[in-house]
């Protein structure tokens, strides 16, 4: 086990990637480390029909065509923009793609309101400039510029959070594929090597904050990642991520499948309720994404492990669910209260099982918060 809290995908799956690279005989575009088919196999996992000696686990859960379209976009000369609600796995997909294609998913620019053009292009090591003057040595390249020089994939998280002028700096990078450094007299252009491309992510809830210019839109292919509503694949995702978490914390804890069902069902109910609500007051502030579900389960696991009886209970799960979804008081609490009394209570009467404990825990948590 590495001593990193969270290893990037290329480190975590290094051995698997090495093996895939060794058996990969498909044509590889540019300087890609894997062929497109292998990239897809790495992300979506292998099947018996693939005829491989070992099993490759599925790492991202969603429609196959999204992955295919993303890979194909990176092989063309356009950037890839993954757009979707928070918690739909955009960044995770971006990381997996970068790891599989160029074995480096860490060349990331995080888009914020404070992101400047320097973060995208380059900046200067001031003391070095004073000592030695402006040169390539005293220049600090941005992650994007590093990606250009290496011919690998650069990532731009939350593109729509940064301001329009910063976004527009990407236009020339994506179309001309070079960055000029006017401060230098010689060696003043950095050309992108083949294989360079950008994966950006954008939050569809932020639409309208800093709209992309149409020139930039044109240089990106949009792949919209929807919220997972398929219960089966959602269960798969939650199980996958929870196992990872348990491994990371060395926690010996069993997540009973019935409890997982309770969690999935309650999220499905709340989503349906949000879908039929007419105003924001009647809707939970949370997007109720899969990531949120994982967060709830993580919380409950950690809580049960360190403060509880080392067993995950329905009460703990309910408490964690209420705790993470009740953000606004009284609106969110009122919705949860209504849900608990209108849906969970009859269900516990009908089905019993874990729902009984879930009902009790939720009630207590709501009472404590209100």
């Amino acid at each position, binding site marked *: 086990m590495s001593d990193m809290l969270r290893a990037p995908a290329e480190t975590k799956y290094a051995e698997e990637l090495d093996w895939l690279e060794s058996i990969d005989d498909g044509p590889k575009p540019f300087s890609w480390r894997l062929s*497109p*088919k292998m990239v*897809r196999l790495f992300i979506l996992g292998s*099947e018996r*029909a693939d005829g491989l000696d070992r099993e490759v686990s599925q790492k991202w859960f969603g429609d*196959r*065509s999204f992955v*295919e*379209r993303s*890979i*194909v*976009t990176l*092989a*063309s000369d*356009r950037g890839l923009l993954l*757009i979707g609600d928070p918690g739909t796995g955009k960044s995770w997909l971006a990381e997996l793609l970068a790891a599989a294609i160029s074995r480096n998913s860490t060349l990331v620019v995080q888009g914020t309101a404070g992101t400047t053009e320097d973060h995208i292009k380059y900046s200067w090591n001031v003391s070095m400039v004073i000592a030695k003057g402006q040169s390539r040595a005293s220049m600090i390249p941005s992650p994007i510029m590093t990606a250009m020089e290496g011919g690998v994939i650069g990532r731009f998280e939350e593109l729509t959070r940064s301001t329009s002028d910063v976004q527009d700096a990407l236009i020339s990078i994506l179309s001309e594929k070079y960055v000029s450094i006017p401060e230098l007299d010689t060696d003043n252009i950095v050309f992108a090597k083949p294989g360079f491309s950008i994966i950006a992510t*954008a939050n*569809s809830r932020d*639409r309208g904050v800093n709209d*992309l210019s*149409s020139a930039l*839109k*044109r240089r990106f*292919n*949009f*792949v*919209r990642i929807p919220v997972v509503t398929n219960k089966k694949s959602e269960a798969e995702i939650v199980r996958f991520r929870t196992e990872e978490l348990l491994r990371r914390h060395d926690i010996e804890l069993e997540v009973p499948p019935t409890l997982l069902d309770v969690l999935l069902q309650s999220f499905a109910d709340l989503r349906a309720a949000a879908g039929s609500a007419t105003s924001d007051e009647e809707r939970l502030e949370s997007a109720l994404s899969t990531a949120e579900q994982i967060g709830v389960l993580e919380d409950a696991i950690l809580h049960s492990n360190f403060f509880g009886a080392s067993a995950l209970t329905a009460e703990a799960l309910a408490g964690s669910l209420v705790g993470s979804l009740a953000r606004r008081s009284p609106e969110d609490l009122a919705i949860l209260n209504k849900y608990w009394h209108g849906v969970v209570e009859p269900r516990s009467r009908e089905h019993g099982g874990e729902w009984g404990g879930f009902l009790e825990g939720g009630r207590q948590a709501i009472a404590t918060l209100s």
Partner: protein
Amino acid sequence: MSGPFDALREQLLGAAESLAGGPDALPEILAGMVDDVDHALREPLEIFPVCHHSPASALAMARRLRQKQPKVIYLELCEDLTPLLTELRNCRLPVALQAFASEVDGFPKESAPLSVIAPITEASAEYQAIAYALETPGVELVLVDRSTDHVFQWQPAAGPHVGEEPEEDLHGDAVGVEIGDLRPRFAELEEHLLHHGRVRHWSEWWEQYVEQPLAGADHETYRQVMVMIGSLFRRLAPHDTRRLATDEDRERYMWTRIREHLAASGADRADCLYICGAFHAASRVAEAGSAPGTPDFEITGRTATQWLYGLIPSSHSAIEAQFGLAPGSVSIAAATWQKSLLRTGVKPFALAGQKSGRKKKAPAPTPAIGTGAVTDQLSGYLAGPPALDGLDEEELRGWCVDIVRLARRNGYLASTADAIAVFETSVLLAGMRGRRRPTPYDFQDAAITCIEKEVVPGRRDVRRLCEILLGGDRIGQVGYDALPPLARDVYDRLEPLGLNLTQRTIQRALLDLAARPELVACSRLLWMLRYLLPDHAVRPIMGSRRLGEKPIQESWDLDLGRHQRTIIELGYEGVTVEQVLEQRLRRSAWEPKATAATALKAVEDSLLFLNSPRLTEELGARAVELLAAERTVDEAPAVLRRIRRLMAHYRATEPALPAWCERFVTEGYAHYCTLLPTAFVDDETGVRQVGAMLGFLFSMESLALSLGCDRTQLEIAVRQSHPEPPAKLALLWAARHQLGDLPLSDLRARVDDLLGNPLVVPAVPQYVSGFVQALEPVPRLAPFVVEILSKAFGSLPDPVLLPWLPSLIMTLRTQAAELVPVLTKEAGRTFPGTLAGIDSWTPPWESRPAPSAGPAVRAVRPGGGPAAALLAAHPQAADAAAVLLGCPGEWTHPADPSDEGAAAADGGGAAVRALLTAYPETTGVVAGLVGAVV
């Protein structure tokens, strides 16, 4: 036994053995498939397996027909649809053959109407066969599948129709039948195939694994592969389902019919071709086979249901929706068909006169080449990768350019760069999905990736645009000659409007009936259509049709082009619109749940739409019958409203009331009199209903009495009524007032008592409600109602008044037509009209003078003048009337001329005199008439 497939059988069994972990049934299935193929090919009557909406099938069919030139074609299609096929010449495909039964006999009543449709598209094998058979002399086409009647006989008990209809609803809620339904029979298998084929829909899987490899295949390969696939699905289908049993019965049915035909016609089996779905081609039922002596299937008779047949328009999207295909798949199949024709140079068959845009290709008969021994073509298909066409660059480039153009037109910021990107992406996607050539599905994905951004600017997104580009939805049309008489009649009669009614857009018709009286007939027809098809086809924008109205101008939105089906289905009910309407009216009046109100409505509709006194008379008689049989008075308000309207209409247009109307009134008078006492007491009967009964009795009274009814019946009925609820009590008082039993002063005193008694005050609003309901039966009580309303508002305490207000308002709102005009008119007369007037205003009921001699004097004074003078001069007549009425006459003598009233009268007299002197002609004529001499 050695055969051409032995080697393959061995090979597959070997494979099954090596997959040791597989299910035990595997060897059996694999070997069985090969056996099925072998068996089907050994059949002397050539079996041609097809799949629906498969261009490869159509192509193979066209080739085979040219090559073999069969004399008899057996087709898997309901046998009773045969006469319809020639009508296909008049239509633009896709259309659907329809069998329709509105009245069922032998099926559960609630399942009516029954409807079966079989859509026919151009890119289908069955159309090729039909066109060949109908266009080539000497070829017989025999439909062998069970009749539409059997479709329902064999169906598990069909429940009543579900009201939900999909958006793309060209087929209505008909049951669809299709040739060559080939699809995995259980969800897991389909899911498995899709998953491993890395495709999203069944249509895509089919396209990639069967359609493309078979597109250029020769006849033998095609036939063997299709039978094998049919056999695979058959062997993997759940065996104990009703569906499989039905399918097997159909196979027995079809083979029995084929053998019957062969025996009857003596046709050579080598000259015949049997076209059926691949699923049926792999049939192993005992009754299958053309050999004489094969056991026959006992074909049950049809039910007595009478079926009607016709063609209705269909569309690609309607077919997709009905048969659960992926959106766009039928369109893509049509595009593929066109392309394959171009590429392979195969000449398709087409019906002469078909409106398809393409010229009919003359069939160029080639000598039939007898196929020799059967050889194994399956091994190649199963073992090798499919032999695909090379990348059809030209076509893909065309698509890319077109989609960008289309996207731009729909608001996308797409450019040539996007076209290039779409091209590149399609190729890359196809490569990644293991296809050498991008399929339309790859192209669609690529276009979405490259062009779709975060918002859809227009009405259509890129996915939809791609569907449009790849052929779009094509909607068929049934030609004029193939329409039922009713639909043709409708088109003929709307001809004077001068609109193109076949167009699939909404057409606005302006009817200036004053300037162009010939359009009155059109208007009448449109109103009838509106009545028969309320939600569809025609919609009035301006104009209405009510009794007593004569339209001057009307404007209509006509959408007949898109609602051809509904008009055609109307054609199953009768020959003309009038006939259908008459049937509907009759049905509504004679249905078991009909009431007098519904019958009166039918009467009214018959007057509005049909000029048929006989029908109206019959419906009216039915209304009388229903009224007499009714035991409740729930519908009294509706009855009253309608009979009033009808009587007003008859009085205005006819010299005398029709007989049924008179009977209705006398019958109603007696009927309501009888029911009145119970209605007053019954808790279930509302105040409104009782009010309407009284309204009927009082407003029809004079007519009823003149027709021989007896007033005492009503008086006794009222006297027998002893209601308890305050509202009905108030109504009873109003009725007694109307009958002269309760003077207004008493009524007023009673109400004042109520208001003065603190124990009764909470119930006062209910009394007032009763009086409000009395406005209708006793309109002359209106001033009194205004009075008590004013008193109630003035004196009731808020806790009593406020809770009652909403219900009062709701009552007034729901019965606005009857109550509000009377009330507002009376209130307007009572209350001052100006703000200043209010200060000096005292309500009339408070300023009432003492009931002494006052009223009599006042009554005479305004009557002064010449009339009073005349009466005073000749008092005999007035005295006699007074004696008759039993009141002692008392004469006030004409005032002397100094009295101001007389002065005024005198002044008036002078003016009249002056006028008459100036224009003596009128007086002269009147004098001449009465025979007086001036």
